[in-house]
Every structure is written in structure tokens, then in C-alpha cells.
């Protein structure tokens, strides 16, 4: 199995519900080691997050569409980032203690806090900012793909998904097995042209990001011309009638 997430950059509204749900589930999780905060209600709050949502503006390269003459509007793209559970995960191979490991059975990348010495080297090797040090224990933290939910037979089958996926109100997050070409995530990624982030670095990230859809274009050449006298009269009558 090759478990991972599909994130839909078209429908993500940037509400941070996934990040909050992640905090809620993993805050005390034994598998994740917890995601503690530092001074959460103080003047300078900080803390460990396995999933962070950032907001970008994408300005179109061509200010006007050449064919239609319409303005190409800029777009806000919300980008949630968590561990990509890379197939060539350098964070695992650079770890000197063996605390970081990638599971053979499902590809999930995990940290054993009992072995971690807090050298930060794995975080240096991660291009996605998916690893954050917990200063209170001195050990590294990261997304576990909610490994303590997805196999929990005590949960109803539909709830055996990462907390972020269940929380998303826009259905912008999907969880599944990318090894199965017929799985929902494989199909969705294929149909929507899902891609990896920074694939040129060679980490072979598993998570796929669906690009924003092209905005609907209005063809100005097919817009109705100026109203005729008859149409203007009809419009006047309509307005009088609806007074």
C-alpha cells in the first residue's frame, strides 16, 4: 500500500479546519507523541503543527485573455501542507539514530520519539516543512497520517480516515491508497491532473495536489448586442408591472 492524501487546491477555502482537527486528534496522541504548544494564550504563542495552511495569490501571467479580451483575474490559492510520506524520504535516510522510519506495509513515515535525539537534521532534509521540533521533549514531530485512526477497527469504517480529511468542510482532502489505480484518490488525481509539489527535488512525494480549475470564461462575442426598441419597451412594461 502507498497511503497518502489528495488536496484539492480548487475547493480548499483556507479555513484551517484540517489543521485544527489535526491538533485536536494528535495533541495527546501516543503515536504522534503529541503536538504541544508553547505559551498558547500568551503574547507570543507558538507550537507544533503537523499541518499548516498558507494562503497565496496567483496573478495571471497574461493580464488579458488574447481571444476574448477579458481580464484574467488573480486567484487566492490556499495550500495546506503536511507530510507527503515521500517514497524517497531523505528525512528517514539522514536520521542518525533510526528514530525516523518509513513503514514497508503502507509507506507511512513515522518518528519514534523514544529514539529521537532532537538534532533537527531530518527537518533540514524536508523541503515541505513537515517536521517540527517539540521543544518541551526535545524530539521531532510530524504527521502520522492518523495511523492510530485509520486502522482502528473500533471506529465505523467511514471514520477510519485522518482527522484532517474528516474535518474538511469543502471536501478538499481525500485519503487513500495510491498503489491501487482504481482507488478514489488515484482516480481523482488522474482525472484532475493532480501533481506533486517540487518533484524535481527527487523525493517522490506521495500526496497529490489538484490544481485550481480554469475559471469559467465568458465569450464576449456571443453576448447580446444593444437591446432593440421592442426589448426596451418590454423591459419598461415589466418594471411598471412589478412596481
Amino acid at each position: 500500500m502507498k497511503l497518502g492524501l489528495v488536496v484539492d487546491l480548487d475547493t480548499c477555502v483556507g479555513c484551517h479546519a484540517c489543521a485544527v482537527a489535526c491538533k485536536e486528534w494528535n495533541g495527546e496522541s501516543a503515536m504522534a507523541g503529541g503536538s504541544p504548544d508553547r505559551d498558547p494564550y500568551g503574547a507570543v504563542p507558538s507550537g507544533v503543527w503537523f499541518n499548516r495552511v498558507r494562503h497565496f495569490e496567483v496573478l495571471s501571467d497574461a493580464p488579458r485573455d488574447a481571444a476574448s479580451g477579458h481580464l484574467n483575474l488573480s486567484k487566492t490559492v490556499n495550500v495546506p501542507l503536511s507530510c507527503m510520506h515521500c517514497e524517497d524520504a531523505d528525512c528517514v535516510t539522514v536520521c542518525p539514530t533510526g528514530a525516523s522510519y518509513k513503514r514497508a506495509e503502507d509507506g507511512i513515515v513515522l518518528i519514534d520519539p523514544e529514539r529521537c535525539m532532537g538534532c533537527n537534521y531530518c527537518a533540514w532534509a524536508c523541503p515541505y516543512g513537515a517536521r517540527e521540533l517539540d521543544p518541551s521533549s526535545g524530539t521531532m514531530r510530524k504527521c502520522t497520517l492518523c495511523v492510530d485512526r485509520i486502522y482502528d477497527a473500533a471506529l465505523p469504517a467511514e471514520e477510519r480516515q485522518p482527522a484532517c480529511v474528516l474535518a474538511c468542510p469543502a471536501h478538499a482532502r481525500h485519503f487513500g491508497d495510491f498503489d491501487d489505480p482504481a482507488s478514489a484518490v488515484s482516480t481523482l488525481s488522474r482525472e484532475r491532473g493532480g501533481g506533486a509539489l517540487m518533484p524535481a527535488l527527487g523525493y517522490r512525494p506521495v500526496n497529490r495536489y489538484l490544481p485550481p480549475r480554469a475559471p469559467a470564461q465568458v465569450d464576449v462575442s456571443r453576448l447580446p448586442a444593444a437591446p432593440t426598441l421592442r426589448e426596451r419597451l418590454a423591459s419598461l412594461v415589466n418594471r411598471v408591472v412589478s412596481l
Partner: protein
Amino acid sequence: MRPALSVVFFTVSAGAGLGLAVWLVLARALGAAGDDATFWRTAACAFVLVSAGFASSTLHLANRRNAWRALACWRTSWLSREGVAAIGFYAASGAYLAAAALRADAALALAGALVVAFAAGTFVSTAMIYACLKTIPQWRTWHTRVAFPLLGLAAGLVAWIAVRGPAAPQGLAAGSGVDLWRELAVALLAAGGALKLAYWAKFPGPDAAPSPNDALGLRDGTIRLLDAGHSHGTFLTDEFCFRVARERARTLRAAALVAGFVAPMALLELATGAWSGAAAAVLCVAGLFVERWLFFAEARHVVRLYHGIRD
């Protein structure tokens, strides 16, 4: 990258100490290590430099209790290999010093070769810790691979001249009136200075890293960060978003070049007093501190793209 002083001190101090050990072994093999007192004084200096360096490196660890586990993954991790090589260096050095104390010449040659080999292994591992990271284009260069061994050997040789004192030339250069060690130190410093100049002249800029479009997986459009999603600093901004002002970097580069390379070269070449070697060593190490601080401070991790920082 945040220039953690513990790591800056570690790489400079341990590098100089390893270099000093290598030169001591070579000098003794060539019969130029001076009298016994000089030999042991130099060995003690190398031991202090290397040990202070490795002690400082553990200050970088947030969970030192697990530091002993760092040798586990030598098959994949350069950090682990560095630890293995360092322990090998200590073992070989112990055997070398024992052989020197017992005047066992055959064992001395063998142990000396091992000291040099493990020092080389430590140099290469330290360099590769940084050079292997695909996330930091400024480190993934030939410069990193050359700089750690070269600057360590240069600083070690300057330290050797300082500790040895202005002794009469021995061994190879005996009778010629030329102190080959000084000439070699000047040559290494010149090579080190040239290496830094070449690196800074062709410093990998934003084009060496993925673009903001690569970071978001979007082919078209110009991308600008609206909101990083956090109200205050995070682990990521603390660790990776350190920025050094261009003007300040220029000043520090000049300071590193003058203190670390030019001034020690001038002292070794022109001054003859007993103090010149010590002054050269102090200046060289001080310059290398600045050089190493910049090595970290000027490195740009690609995660900065997600924080709206490109340069």
C-alpha cells in the same frame, strides 16, 4: 538557516583539531615533530580542540539522552558516519599516543595511518552532512565538499606552527633555511581564500532552487504569499527563515577573508617573531568562525518558498 553557535564552534574547532592531529602525525613520520615536549603539547592541543568541538556539537541536540544512538544508521546517514569516524579517530589516536609513549615504531606508523584515515573520514562526513541536502542549494555544491577538509587542514597547520613555536627547520627542509611548514600553511590558506572567493562570486541564487510555482505545483501565474497562516514565529521560521542583510554579509565576508586568510598569510610570510605563529592561529580561527557563521546564515532552505521568501 539559523547559524547555531554550537554547530559553528563545533565545525571550526573540531576541524582545526583534526587538521592539527593530521599534521602532527605527518611531522613525526618525517622526523620534524620536534622534541617530546612539543609532541605531547601538540597532541594535547589537538585533543582539546577536537573534544571541545564534539562537546559543543551535543549542545545542538534537543534531547541529548539519545545522543548515543547516533551511531546506529551509519549505512545511510552522514551524521551517523561522522560519529563513527570520530570514535575511530579517538581510538586510533589513543593507539598512536600509546605507541609514541612506548616508542613502538611499527605500531606508531600503523596507528598514525589510521589517525589520518579516520580524520579524513570525519572531514568527508562533516562536509557531506551539508552537501547531501537537496533542500539547500548553497550547500549542495563542490565548495562544501572541499571547504571542510581544506579549511580544517589549513587551520590545523597554522595551529601546528603556533604550538611548535619558531623551531629550527627539521626533516625535509633541514639546513635549507626555509621553513617548509610555513610555506605549506601559506599555500593552504591561499587555496582556502581562493575557494571562498570563488564560492561567493558564484553564490547560488534563487535560480538554483525550485521556484514558487514548483513549490505550489502551479505551472502558470506569479505567486505571492498573502498569509503564512501563523501569527508569530514557528519552528520553521526560527530554523529556516534566518536572513542576513546583504550589506552585513558583505562586511562579514570581508572580515572572514582578512582575518581567516590574508592576515595569517602575511604573518607567516613576513613576521618572524615567536608570537607570529600564535597570532596567525588566533586570527585564522577567528576568521573561520565568521566564515562558518556565514556558511549557515547565507544558506537558503527551500521551505522559505512557503513563507514568501525567495532570496
